[in-house]
């Protein structure tokens, strides 16, 4: 790679002519005696054919590879955007970006790990399970990714019944509400940290509107995992029912701290404000929840309720109509709840 220069003849006093052709027509002002034609010839020193062929070969391979470049670039942009959203704890947007990557590259480990995390924080258990299954047995050298998968899966396990809990449920036809209170109490004596067991029992008490007992179970859950999002969500509702507005809001804020785009947390908070007779704030938060995630019927139903309590019947009916139009069984349940609240059969 050494670059050297031609010293010979540069200071020669003997040779008066061009060192290449002997011509007397020397171009002055240069260290090498060359005539104009030879100077041009050496300036345009030829590039050998093998070098040209080498360059053509590289250019052809590059051109071929460039065909897939736009798709790869687009995937790279989606992945990076997702990672940026993830850093800002905007998991809904992050999940959208990672899903785009997975559609193109279903086996990509990095995108799948990020999707797993986003799905967990979005409480999208269908995607969580599907992605965890996909990652099972996959090997990666990236220790950070490996640790993330292990951490998320360990935390997500608390959201599902374990073998002991499944055995209990099996005895009662796999129906959580069919399990008698005494069976739950005995089970939780033997398994005091079984998060799913605690939650199942809390849900049963919630349905019976036994707020104190329900809250006590939720607190037990949160002592083990203060970030348990489902426990926090239910706790926000329980505290609202108990008239503990600030505590209810605090639970929602904890969820939002974990996931800035937890639309349901904004909607839950909106319901608390509405029940607290802070209608304008309730409406503002309900609108925010729908802006974040209008696919969640819980948010849309909350907006309908917010319009109702803000005495905007036409807007309320418009939202109810929209909610009914793409109604699945879950959405229909929310529609019914909204109608019951409007008709004073239910309260927030």
């Amino acid at each position: 790679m050494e670059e050297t220069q031609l010293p010979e003849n540069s200071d020669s006093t003997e040779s008066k002519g061009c060192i290449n052709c002997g011509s007397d027509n020397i171009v002055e002002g240069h260290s090498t005696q060359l005539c104009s034609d030879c100077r041009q010839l050496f300036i345009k020193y030829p590039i050998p054919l093998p070098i040209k062929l080498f360059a053509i070969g590289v250019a052809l391979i590059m051109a071929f590879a460039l065909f897939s470049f736009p798709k790869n670039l687009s995937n790279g942009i989606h992945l990076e955007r997702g990672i940026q959203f993830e850093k800002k704890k905007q998991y809904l947007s992050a999940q959208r970006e990672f899903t785009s990557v997975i559609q193109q590259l279903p086996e990509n480990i990095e995108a799948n790990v990020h999707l797993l995390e986003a799905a967990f924080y979005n409480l999208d258990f269908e995607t969580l399970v599907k992605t965890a299954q996909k990652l099972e047995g996959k090997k990666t050298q990236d220790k950070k990714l490996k640790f993330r998968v292990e951490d998320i899966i360990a935390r997500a396990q608390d959201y599902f019944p374990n073998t002991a809990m499944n055995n209990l449920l099996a005895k009662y036809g796999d129906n959580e509400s069919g399990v008698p209170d005494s069976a739950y109490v005995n089970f939780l004596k033997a398994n005091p940290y079984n998060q799913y067991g605690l939650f199942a029992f809390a849900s049963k008490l919630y349905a019976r509107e036994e707020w104190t007992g329900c809250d006590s179970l939720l607190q037990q859950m949160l002592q083990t995992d203060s970030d348990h999002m489902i426990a926090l969500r239910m706790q926000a509702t329980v505290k609202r029912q108990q008239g503990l507005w600030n505590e209810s809001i605090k639970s929602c804020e904890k969820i939002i701290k974990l996931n800035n785009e937890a639309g349901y947390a904004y909607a839950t908070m909106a319901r608390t404000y509405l029940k607290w007779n802070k209608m304008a704030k309730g409406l503002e938060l309900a609108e925010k929840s729908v802006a974040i995630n209008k696919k969640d019927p819980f948010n849309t139903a909350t907006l309908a309720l917010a319009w109702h309590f803000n005495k905007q019947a036409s807007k309320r009916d418009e939202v109810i109509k929209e909610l009914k139009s793409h109604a699945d069984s879950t959405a229909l349940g929310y529609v019914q709840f909204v109608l019951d609240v409007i008709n004073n059969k239910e309260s927030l």
Partner: protein
Amino acid sequence: MFIPGFVIGIVTFPGVIVHEFAHQLFCRLYKVPVFKVVYFQVGNPAGYVLHEPAPNKWHNIMISIGPFFVNTILGALIALPAALPVFTFENGGWLDYLLIYLGVSIAMHAFPSTGDANVIWEVLKEKDTNLLVKIIGYPLVGLIYLGSLGSFFWLDLMYGMAIAIGLPKLIISFFV
């Protein structure tokens, strides 16, 4: 791990070719006659360009450091389409790996050699060299020697890898 220079030269020969071609290209740009070009040979140096000293000191410096620009840009461009499949998505085909090999080989030979530094040194020692050329030239020679020293610790390879990975990252960060 120590690997003799000539072995690295053989393995990364495309970079040596482009390095010498870059010297030639800059000579042509500044209308400096070239008398001999060895694009690649087994030995030390792995390649060289024999040319007339340019009358302009800046041109001399640019001819010496030309490979830094040409190898860096070309290495980055060649690796560009393959960097994402190989480094980010891990789904690259053999063609992608070939491009990465070419891109990294070329970019890692971007550093001017100590021979190139010696040429600049000679220019700087000349009596009529102005102060500005000296101010820029001396640190440049120091940097080239540092780079050469760094190659013992695979600095050139690290640079090549960084260039290959860096450009797609830069483009992506522009869109994000």
